[in-house]
C-alpha cells in the first residue's frame, strides 16, 4: 500500500494521548444513591458472569482507536496495487503504435487502453493532477499536468492510434523529465508491449509502471514493399512485396495488386508462420500512379494488410554529350533510360536536355544543367591544376550512389588533375588528391572525374559504364526512383536541394491535410510520417514528388502480447520497482469510518439508554 500524503501518518501520534485520556479522565458520573447494597451485588455478578466483559468494557475505546487509525489512513491517501493511480501527479503514456489498433480484443487494444485511462482519470482525487502523453514515433504531450478531470477525459476520448511504430522509450524519458519536479509522481505506460525500446527505458526508470493491454492474435502482414527498376528493362519497374504470418497455422492468403482503380493481378499465396514470403510483381504498366497491394486476410490488424507505392511514369532522360568519345557514348546508350544527343558545338540549354556530359572539355562557369565532366581541365572557371602522374587510388565512398557496384581498386591512372573546386566533396581519392568529386557550380549539381578515361585503364573495366550510368542517374535523380520514395511509417522525410533557405515546402498527407516546413541549409525536414499512404511533396517552382508510407514493421504486425522486461544498457534484466498502477482506497476507508462511527454511536446509545 502506498500513500499519497504520508505526512498524515503523523496523526498516529494521537493514539497514546487518546489512550491516556480514555484511561485517565474521570469518565464515570458520580451519583449519590440511598444505598449501594444491591449495586454491589450487580457489579460482582458483572465481573464474574462473562470473561469477555473486560474486553466489552473497552469496546468503545477499541472502536475509537480503529476510527482514528482509519481516519489517519484516509488522510494519508492510501492506494493499493493493481489499479490505475500512482501518485498525486500521474503521467499516463498511451502506446499509439499501429499494433494498438488491432482488434484483439474488440474493438481494439487502444480502446481498452482508453478505458483504462478514463478509469484512472475518474479515480483522481481533487488534488491530484494528470498528464497524457501519446507515444507515437515521437512522443506528444496531449494534455499537460491538469486537475481538470473533464479536460483530461475529453482529451483521452479523442485519442487515436497512429499507423506507425511508437517509441515508448522516448515517451518514458519525456514523461519522467516532465514529472521530475513533482514530489509525488508516477508514470504509467499503457501498451501492448510491441516496442522493445520500452524495456531499456524501464531499465533506466524502474519506478515506471506498465499496464499491458491486449490479447495475442494471429496476423498476416505486408512486412516489406519496394518498387525498383527492372534489371531487364530499364524503363520498367518491379514491385517487391514480402508477406509474413505471425502465429497461427499455415494458410493461403489472397493477394491483390492494384494500380489506381485497376486490378493488375491477384493470386493466392501460401504463407507459413514465421518465415517471410517474398513476392515480385511485374508488368505494372507504362503509366505512373499509386500501386496498392492488398491482402485478403480478415485478421485483427487491418493496417498492415495494405501497402502502397508511387510509380513514376517512365521517362527517358536526354543526355547532351560534348566532346564525347565513342566509348563513352556507347556506355550511355547501353541504358534505355537515357537518350544520347551529341552536341554540335552550341551550348546546351535546359530545354534541350536533362544532363550534359563533358569529356575532356572545360565546364562553363555558369552551367545551366547538371553535368558530368570526364577529365576537364577547367570547371566553373576554376582550373583543376597541373597534371600529376600516376596517382594511386587510396580510398573512395563506397556507399555513394555514383560508386554503386563500382570497384575502383586497382584502376591505373597515368595522369590526373587532382584538384577539386572549393567546397566539392571527393568521392574517389588518391595519394595526390581527388580523382572523382561532386559539387555544385552555379546552382547545378556536377560530377568531375579528374582524369581522362583514356589516360587510364578504366574504360577497359566493367566499372566504366557503371560509373557513367550511375553518375547520370544521380545527376538526373533516377537513382532514387522507387527507393527513397517508399518510407516506413514513422520515418522522417528529408530532402536536399529543394530550394533555397527560406523557401517553404508543403507535404500533403493521404487524408488531405498538409504540413509545411522551411528549407534550412538546403534541406527540408518533415518529422515522423505517421499516416500510411502516398504523400505529395510540393516545393517552389512547381516541383513535386510523391512518397509512399507503409507500416512494414514486423514488431507492429506481431500481435503477440509480451509484458515489458526492464533491461539495462547491456541487455541485462533490471528488477522493476514499480507496480502496475495503484487505486485510491480513500473512499472505501471513509465509508468504513462512517460505518464505524454509526456502530459506535449505536453502541453508545445501547449502552447508555437501555
Amino acid at each position, binding site marked *: 500500500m502506498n500513500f499519497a500524503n504520508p505526512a498524515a501518518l503523523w496523526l498516529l501520534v494521537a493514539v497514546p494521548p487518546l489512550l491516556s485520556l480514555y484511561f485517565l479522565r474521570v469518565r464515570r458520573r458520580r451519583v449519590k444513591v440511598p*444505598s449501594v447494597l444491591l449495586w454491589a451485588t450487580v457489579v460482582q455478578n*458483572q465481573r464474574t458472569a462473562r470473561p469477555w466483559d473486560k474486553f466489552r468494557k473497552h469496546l468503545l475505546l477499541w472502536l475509537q482507536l480503529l476510527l482514528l487509525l482509519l481516519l489517519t489512513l484516509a488522510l494519508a491517501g492510501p492506494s493499493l496495487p493493481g489499479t490505475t493511480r500512482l501518485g498525486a501527479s500521474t503521467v499516463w503514456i498511451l502506446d499509439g503504435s499501429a499494433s494498438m489498433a488491432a482488434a484483439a480484443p474488440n474493438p481494439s487494444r487502444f480502446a481498452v487502453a482508453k478505458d483504462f485511462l478514463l478509469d484512472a482519470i475518474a479515480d483522481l482525487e481533487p488534488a491530484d493532477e494528470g498528464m497524457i502523453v501519446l507515444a507515437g514515433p515521437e512522443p506528444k504531450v496531449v494534455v499537460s499536468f491538469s486537475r481538470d478531470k473533464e479536460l483530461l477525459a475529453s482529451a483521452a476520448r479523442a485519442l487515436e492510434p497512429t499507423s506507425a511504430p511508437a517509441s515508448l522509450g522516448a515517451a518514458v524519458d519525456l514523461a519522467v523529465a516532465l514529472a521530475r519536479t513533482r514530489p509525488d509522481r508516477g508514470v504509467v505506460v499503457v501498451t501492448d508491449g510491441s516496442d522493445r525500446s520500452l524495456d531499456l527505458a524501464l531499465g533506466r526508470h524502474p519506478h515506471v509502471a506498465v499496464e499491458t493491454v491486449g490479447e495475442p492474435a494471429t496476423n498476416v502482414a505486408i512486412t516489406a514493399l519496394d518498387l525498383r527498376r527492372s534489371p531487364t528493362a530499364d524503363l520498367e519497374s518491379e514491385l517487391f512485396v514480402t508477406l509474413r504470418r505471425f502465429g497461427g497455422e499455415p494458410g493461403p492468403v489472397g493477394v491483390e495488386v492494384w494500380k489506381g482503380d485497376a486490378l493488375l493481378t491477384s493470386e493466392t499465396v501460401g504463407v507459413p508462420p514465421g518465415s517471410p514470403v517474398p513476392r515480385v510483381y511485374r508488368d505494372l504498366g507504362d503509366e505512373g500512379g499509386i500501386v496498392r497491394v492488398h491482402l485478403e486476410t480478415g485478421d485483427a490488424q487491418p493496417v498492415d494488410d495494405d501497402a502502397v507505392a508511387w510509380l513514376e511514369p517512365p521517362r527517358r532522360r536526354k543526355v547532351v554529350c560534348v566532346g564525347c568519345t565513342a566509348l563513352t557514348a556507347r556506355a550511355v546508350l547501353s541504358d534505355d533510360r537515357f537518350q544520347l544527343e551529341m552536341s554540335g558545338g552550341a551550348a546546351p540549354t535546359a530545354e534541350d536536355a536533362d544532363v550534359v556530359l563533358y569529356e575532356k572539355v572545360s565546364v562553363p562557369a555558369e552551367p545551366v544543367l547538371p553535368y558530368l565532366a570526364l577529365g576537364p581541365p577547367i570547371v566553373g572557371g576554376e582550373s583543376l591544376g597541373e597534371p600529376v602522374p600516376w596517382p594511386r587510388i587510396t580510398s573512395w565512398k563506397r556507399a555513394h550512389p555514383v560508386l554503386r557496384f563500382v570497384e575502383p581498386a586497382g584502376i591505373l591512372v597515368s595522369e590526373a588533375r587532382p584538384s577539386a573546386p572549393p567546397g566539392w566533396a571527393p568521392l574517389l581519392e588518391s595519394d595526390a588528391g581527388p580523382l572523382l568529386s561532386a559539387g555544385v557550380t552555379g546552382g547545378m549539381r556536377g560530377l568531375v572525374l579528374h582524369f581522362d578515361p583514356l589516360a587510364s585503364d578504366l574504360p577497359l573495366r566493367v566499372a566504366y559504364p557503371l560509373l557513367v550510368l550511375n553518375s547520370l542517374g544521380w545527376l538526373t535523380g533516377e537513382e532514387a526512383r522507387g527507393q527513397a520514395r517508399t518510407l516506413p511509417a514513422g520515418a522522417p522525410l528529408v530532402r536536399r536541394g529543394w530550394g533555397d533557405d527560406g523557401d517553404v515546402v508543403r507535404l500533403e498527407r493521404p487524408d488531405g491535410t498538409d504540413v509545411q516546413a522551411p528549407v534550412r541549409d538546403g534541406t527540408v525536414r518533415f518529422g515522423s510520417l505517421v499516416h500510411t499512404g502516398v504523400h505529395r511533396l510540393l516545393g517552389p517552382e512547381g516541383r513535386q514528388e510523391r512518397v509512399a508510407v507503409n507500416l512494414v514493421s514486423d514488431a507492429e504486425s506481431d500481435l503477440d502480447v509480451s509484458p515489458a522486461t526492464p533491461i539495462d544498457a547491456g541487455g541485462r534484466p533490471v528488477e522493476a520497482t514499480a507496480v502496475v498502477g495503484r487505486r485510491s482506497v480513500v473512499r472505501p476507508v471513509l465509508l468504513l469510518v462512517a460505518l464505524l462511527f454509526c456502530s459506535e454511536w449505536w453502541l453508545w446509545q*445501547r449502552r447508555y439508554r437501555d
Partner: protein
Amino acid sequence: MPDPTPDTLLDGAFLARLEKLALRSRTRIAGRRAGGHRSLRRGQSLEFADHREYVPGDDIRHLDQHLLGRLDRLFVKLFEAREDRTVQVLVDGSGSMAGAKWDAARKAAAAVAYASLCGLDRVQIFAAGETLRAAGRPVRGRSAIHRLFGFLRGTTPEGGTALARATASLPPARAGAMTVLITDGWDPAGLEGTLRRLRHRGGQAHVLHLVDGREIAATGLSGDLTLVDVETGHEVAVTLDRDARARYAAAVDEWLTGCSDAARRAGVGYFRVDVADTSEGGLEERLLRWLREAERAAPGRRR
C-alpha cells in the same frame, strides 16, 4: 382535632379519618393506666368478665353476694380492666430516607401517633439514625400531637443505618405495646435481626416498608457511573447497560421478597408503600389501609 396548618404534617380530612379509625381499633392490651383498650388483666371497669373462687387477700368488695346466697360458696367477681397502651414509633432517620421517603415516613409516623393518641394510647416517637433520638417521654392526649409533629418536623434524615442497635435501645415495652418501624429497609445488617428484636420485645410489631419506585427502577441512571452510598460513602463503579439493569431488577425483587419473608418469619406485620406511586388515592389512602390491616392483625381485636 389539631388545626390543619401549612406546617402540619397531616391535613384536617386525614386527621378526621384517623380519628374514626381509632374508635374501631381498640383492643385488649396490657397497660399501666386505664385507657381505651381492654386489658388482658382483670380490672376495675364495669364490664363483668368472670368469677373465681375467693382466696384470702381478695378484696371482699368483689364477693358475689348472689352466688354466696345461692351456692353458699365464696366467689369473687372479675371485671375487665381498661388500660392504656404504649405505641412506640421508630422512624428510620438515616440518610437513605432523604427525599420523598422521609416525607412519607413523617406522615406515616404522624398518622400512627395521632390515631394512637385518639385511642387514648401513650405514644412515643423515635428517630433511628446512627443514634436513637426520642421525641421525649411518652405522651397522651390529642393535644400532645403538636409536640410529636414538632419533633418530626425538626428531624432530618442523616447518618448511617443501625436499626438493630436502635431497636435494642428502645425503652422496654409492656406486653400489649405496639412498636411500629418505618424504614426504607436499606440496612447493611439486614432487616431480619431488627424485626426479630421487635417481635421479641412483646406486643405487636409492624413494619412499614417505604420504597421509592424510582430508586428501584434506577430511573435517571445510565452509562458509566460511580454510585456513592449517601450513608456510608462507599462507591461502586457500574456500567449501567441492559444486562446490569436486569440484574439490578432481579436483585431488587429478591431483596423485597426477602424483606417480606423476614417479617413473616419474625411475626411482624409488614406493609410496603411505594412513595412514588400516586395511584389509588395517594400516600394517605395507603397509610389508612395499612393502619386498618394492622388493626385487623392485632390480637384481642374487638369483633
